[in-house]
C-alpha cells in the first residue's frame, strides 16, 4: 500500500514537469512485416518506419507502446495511448467506435494459406485472428470459424492440422508461405476493408488532421511507395 502511495505521488508530481504532449503510438507488435518486436526488443516493421516518418512530418514527439490486439480499441478510447497503427483495416464497424485517418495502404487483399491448395474453403474449418475483418468474413460465409488471439497461433493451427486453412492479410502470409516448405496459398484472394489507416479517438480531430496531412505528403513525394516496396512488395502501390 505504501509503495502505491509513494509511486502515485511520484507520478502525480512527475506529471507537472513537461507540457508538450507525447503522442503514444499503440501497436500490436506481433504482425510482421507490418509491426513486430525485433530481436533487440524494439517495435520494428513497415508501420514503425511509417509512424516515425509521420511523426517527423507532423512535428510530433512519439512513443511506441504495444498492446494485445484483443483490447487494442478499448485501450485507445480509454486513453492509454493516442493512436492505433497496427495493420488495422478501415471498416464501418470499427468506424462507429473510433475514427480513422486516410488509408496508407490500398485495400489489402486477404488470402487463404493451407497445407494443400485443394482444401474446402467454403465448408471447411478456417482460422483467423479474433476481431479482424477476416474473422467477420469467415463468420458470414459457410465455413466454420476458429479464432485465435495472435496471428502466430493461426499459422500454428494450420500446421498442426487443427484447421484446414487460415485467412489473413496477404502481406502477412506472403513471407511465411514463401519461406516455408509446407504451406501454400489456396483459392482466390479476396478484397476486404478499405485499406489500412491510423486509428484515433473520435474527439482527437486535431491529431487526425495532422496525420492526414503527413500521409498525403508521403503519398505525394513517393516515400510511402518506397516503404511499401521495402516491407510489403506484394501490395499495390499508390
Amino acid at each position, binding site marked *: 500500500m505504501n*509503495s502505491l502511495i509513494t509511486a502515485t505521488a511520484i507520478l502525480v508530481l512527475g506529471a507537472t514537469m513537461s507540457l508538450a504532449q507525447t503522442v503514444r503510438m499503440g501497436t500490436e507488435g506481433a504482425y*510482421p512485416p507490418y509491426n513486430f518486436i525485433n530481436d533487440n526488443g524494439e517495435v520494428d*516493421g513497415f508501420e514503425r518506419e511509417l509512424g516515425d516518418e509521420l511523426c517527423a512530418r507532423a512535428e510530433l*514527439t512519439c512513443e511506441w507502446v504495444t498492446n*494485445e490486439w484483443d483490447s487494442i480499441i478499448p485501450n485507445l478510447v480509454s486513453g492509454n495511448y493516442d493512436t492505433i497503427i497496427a495493420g488495422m483495416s478501415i471498416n464501418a464497424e470499427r468506424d462507429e467506435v473510433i475514427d480513422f485517418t486516410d488509408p496508407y495502404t490500398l485495400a489489402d487483399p486477404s488470402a487463404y494459406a493451407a497445407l494443400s491448395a485443394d482444401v474446402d474453403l467454403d465448408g471447411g474449418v478456417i482460422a483467423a485472428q479474433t476481431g479482424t475483418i477476416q474473422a467477420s468474413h469467415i463468420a458470414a460465409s459457410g465455413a466454420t470459424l476458429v479464432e485465435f488471439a*495472435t496471428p*502466430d*497461433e493461426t499459422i500454428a493451427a494450420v500446421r498442426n492440422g487443427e484447421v484446414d486453412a487460415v485467412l489473413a492479410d496477404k502481406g502477412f502470409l506472403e*513471407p511465411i508461405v514463401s519461406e516455408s516448405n509446407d504451406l501454400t496459398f489456396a483459392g482466390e484472394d479476396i478484397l476486404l476493408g478499405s485499406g489500412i489507416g491510423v486509428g484515433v*479517438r473520435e474527439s482527437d480531430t486535431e491529431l487526425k488532421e495532422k496525420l492526414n496531412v503527413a500521409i498525403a505528403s508521403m503519398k505525394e513525394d513517393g516515400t510511402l511507395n518506397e516503404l511499401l516496396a521495402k516491407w510489403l512488395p506484394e501490395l499495390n502501390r499508390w
Partner: protein
Amino acid sequence: MFGFCIDPTQLETARWLACYLTTGKHFAFYGSFVTVIVLLLVTAPVALAFGFGGAIAARSPLLPLRWLGKGYTAMVRGVPDIAFFLFFVIALDQGLEWMVHQIRCPDWTEPIRDGHEFRVCPQAKVPNSSAAQLWHEIYNFTLAIFTFAIVFGAFAANVLFGAMNAIPRAQLETAEAYGMSRRQVFRRIVVPQMWVYALPGLSNLWMILVKVTPLLFLLGVEDIVYWARELGGAKTQAFTYPHPDWRLYYFLGLLVFYLALTKLSEVVFLHLMRRVSLGQSTMGGERLRAG
C-alpha cells in the same frame, strides 16, 4: 552481444544459439523473471497485511467495522479473478485520473465520459503521456500489485479469521484471569499462536499466487508467459534470427521454472511449519516435543 554475432546467417549452430539467446529481446525475457519474482515478494506481505486488517475488522466488536471486514472477504472472494482484474484495474486507473482531473483542471468544461471515450485533461493523465515508458510500466506494475494484494488479501483474511478463532478458548480465559486487556490478549496470546492454524491455508494461497502471475499480462505488464509466446513463435526472414515454431521449448522452460519455484516454496513452508508448531498443543507440536 558477442563480437561474432554481426552476421547470424554465417554462424554454425552453437555460436548461432549463443547469439540468439543474448539478443535484446531475450534479455527482456530474462528480465521478466525478475518482474514476476518481485511481484510475488511484494504482493505476499501486502496481501498478508490486507488479510490481517480484514480479519481484525471481521472480529471487531463494532458492527460497521465487522460488516466492512466480512463484506470485503465475501465480495472479493465471490468475484471471478479474471473479471476482477479486468474491471477493478480500469476502475482504479480511471478513478485516479478523475480525481487528479478534479484537482488540476477545475475549469475543464468538456464531458469526461463521452460516448465510448474516457477523456480527462492532459495534465490529469496518470502517468502523464510525456512520461518515459518506464513510468508507464512502473504504474501498471503498481496497479497489478495492488489488485493482486486486494484479491489475495480477501482470501488471507478468511484464513486468518479462522486461525484466530481456532485458539483454544481456555487460553484466552486464562489470560483474562491474569488481568490482561482484550488488546493484550490479542497481541500476546492470539497472534503468536494463530500461525500454526493459518499456515496451511496461507501456503495454499502462496502457491496459487505463484501460478496466477500470467494474469499480469491482462494488466499490461509483460511477464514470462508473454515473452515465451512472443519469442517461441515462428520467425520469418524479417527477423535477424529466423526459426520455426519453438514455443514448446520455451514453455518447457517455464514449466521447469514454475516447478522449481513451487518446490522451493514447499521446502520453506515445511520449515516454517516446524517453527510455528514448536510448543503448540497440536499433533505437530507434540511430535516435536517427543523428539
